């Protein structure tokens, strides 16, 4: 059950953002319209207040007193008009009020803009106060100080409110219309945009253990966002294919290697069966079979060891590691190899300038050393010597070097000696009892510890194997 869908999320995001956008548009539209209407209304009221101010005149007696000249009242201020006004003079207070001024309405001459609502709540008035207005009527040679007026002017604001609502309605309808058009468009765009992902998934579904090729769809390759995905898919597939091929190769190699010992065993038994034998012949035959079985068993053990080492190198198994002394494991390995060295009359010298400690399974390291020592001893001339040097370079990795002075490895074989079942010269290896697995196991184990193993050889002069193991966290 799929709970989350990118498509659904994107659609939800589009719808929400579109709705928010519409709401924002509506709000700003209404706000702006309201402000514009308000300032228009104020400008009109201001103009009308000025025309009221123009009706205030000085008396002829040069006393500096003023009167309100009703006779010149403009049409806009006739008694039927809903606008209200009141004029105060600085010297004598209230001068006049419009004839329709409601009884009992008190609007003081001080204060800022204000609202006033009629008793029934029917009509809302906007109130404007203009103070410090000079009396416009002036004559030449005035001997008195000019008076200033304060005018309170109120006009109903319901038309403004109505217009604001109208604007809001228009914007809302337009937004809804836009939403209705853009949402399906966005849906279509999202579906189309996600199509390459679908194509990529279709192609990825075709990948299998037998078909590793991922054919990247054209459209998916064109999309920048998909590039990291396609790239990592390609590299992941390459890695998988590699390890798969390795497994398959190992299986093939193993089966191939098992065939010969099985053939030996089978032919021994069949030749026993060919005709009646004496009991001595049977006994000899059985002994031979047991020897052949031993060899087969050994081969199986080596293969299992390698498989385990490789599994571990790939991180499939974790083990408890302990801090061990490299030199100590080396000494133990030398002890274990001593019988073989004695048959070759070979001497082994271990040298080390300091104690090197690292975290490892001592069995693993011993196995690595034994494999390397065994090779060194086997390919040493009669009475030869093998040198083992344990070093540590300041903060660098621990380094263990195995050097023999034997036949060396031909340059053509050198790059392959760590491959499983690789035998440069099968006769030599078979004669020395190897299966071509020792070095592969050593390599897998060293790599499991994050180390490296390298070989250098000069044919006829000897071989030098260098193992480097990171000291890591002890």
């Amino acid at each position, binding site marked *: 059950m799929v709970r989350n869908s990118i498509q659904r999320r994107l659609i939800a995001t589009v719808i929400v953002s579109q709705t928010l956008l519409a709401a924002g548009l509506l709000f700003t539209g209404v706000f702006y319209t309201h402000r514009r209407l308000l300032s228009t209304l104020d400008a009109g009221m201001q103009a009308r207040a000025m025309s009221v101010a123009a009706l205030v005149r000085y008396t002829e007696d040069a006393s500096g007193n003023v009167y309100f000249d009703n006779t010149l009242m403009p049409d806009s201020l006739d008694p039927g008009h809903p606008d209200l006004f009141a004029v105060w003079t600085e010297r004598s207070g209230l001068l006049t009020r419009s004839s329709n001024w409601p009884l009992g309405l008190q609007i003081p001459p001080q204060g800022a803009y204000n609202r006033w609502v009629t008793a029934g709540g029917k009509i809302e008035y906007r109130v404007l106060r203009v103070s410090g207005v000079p009396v416009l009527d002036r004559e030449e040679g005035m001997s008195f100080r000019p008076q200033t007026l304060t005018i309170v002017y109120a006009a109903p604001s319901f038309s403004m409110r109505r217009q604001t609502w109208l604007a809001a309605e228009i914007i809302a309808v337009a937004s809804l219309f836009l939403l209705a058009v853009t949402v399906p468009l966005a849906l279509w765009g999202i579906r189309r945009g996600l199509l390459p992902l679908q194509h990529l998934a279709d192609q990825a579904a075709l990948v299998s253990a037998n078909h590793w090729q991922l054919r990247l769809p054209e459209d998916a390759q064109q999309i920048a966002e998909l590039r990291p995905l396609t790239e990592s898919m390609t590299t992941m597939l390459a890695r998988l294919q590699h390890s798969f091929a390795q497994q398959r190769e190992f299986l093939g190699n193993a089966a*191939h290697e098992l*065939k*010969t010992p*099985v*053939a*030996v*065993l*089978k*032919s*021994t038994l*069949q*030749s026993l069966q*060919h*005709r009646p034998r004496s009991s001595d012949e049977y006994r000899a035959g059985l002994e*031979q079979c047991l020897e*052949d079985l031993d060899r087969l068993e050994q081969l199986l053990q080596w293969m299992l060891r390698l498989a385990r080492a490789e599994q571990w190198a790939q991180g499939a198994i974790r083990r408890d590691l302990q801090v061990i002394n490299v030199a100590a494991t080396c000494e133990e390995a030398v002890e274990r190899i001593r019988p073989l060295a004695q048959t070759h009359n070979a001497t082994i010298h271990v040298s080390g300038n300091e104690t090197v400690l690292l975290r490892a399974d001592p069995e693993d390291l011993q196995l690595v050393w034994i494999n390397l020592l065994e090779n060194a001893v086997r390919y040493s001339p009669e009475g030869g010597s093998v040198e083992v040097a344990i070093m540590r370079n300041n903060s660098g990795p621990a380094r263990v070097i195995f050097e023999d002075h034997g036949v060396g490895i031909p340059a053509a074989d050198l790059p392959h000696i760590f491959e499983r079942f690789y035998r440069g*010269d*099968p*006769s*030599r290896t*078979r004669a020395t009892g190897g299966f071509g697995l020792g070095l592969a196991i050593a390599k897998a184990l060293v790599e499991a510890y994050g180390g490296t193993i390298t070989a250098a050889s000069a044919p006829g002069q000897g071989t030098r194997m260098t193992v480097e193991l990171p000291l890591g966290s002890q």
Partner: protein
Amino acid sequence: MRVLIVEDEPRLAENIARSLRESAGFAVDVATDGQEGLFLAESNVYDAVLLDLMLPKLDGMQLLTRIRQAGHRTPVLVVTARDDKESVVALLNAGADDYLTKPFDLGELLARTKALIRRGKGQPSPVLTIGDLELNAVSRTVQRAGKYVALTAMEYRVLEYLAHRPRAVVSKTELLEHLYDYNWEKFSNVIEVYISGLRRKLNDGSARQLIHTVRGQGYILQD
């Protein structure tokens, strides 16, 4: 008959050799690497070569190519651990006559070797007839005029070789080469003993001589 085994696993070579000696009465030589194998195969005295592919020094495929290039007609049976179609086809195309995959059945190996030897000598049937003489190479029995003739192992081997090359002159040296392992020279005088023994047993109750001596050249088996 003399067979060369080129096989680097000594145990396996030993088993095959013993089986060829015991069950087929063949002389067998074993080479443990490709170079030795090539050297022996080129002496051209073998009636068949059993060849392993994974060989030190010179691998089986190269050895095969080399002896075929040199014009040797010896039948070659390849014993291989590989059984994929490509390598089998490549083998046969390189001049191998047959192949067997490991682990094989010894009986099958014997039968195939014998069949290859017969074919190599132009004798498709395991029952060889010369006049009233009948030699069965499978049961290793000989009849003259319908009556079984009891032969010693060596007598049978001489007759078998002659029967595979009827009406051809076979020298004493050729017989020796094909009947003994490589140290045959010390047996050089015994051929005459076997031939006279054979003549005596085959002519029992019949006047017609089948094995003729060609003076200074060798023997010929014909009616």
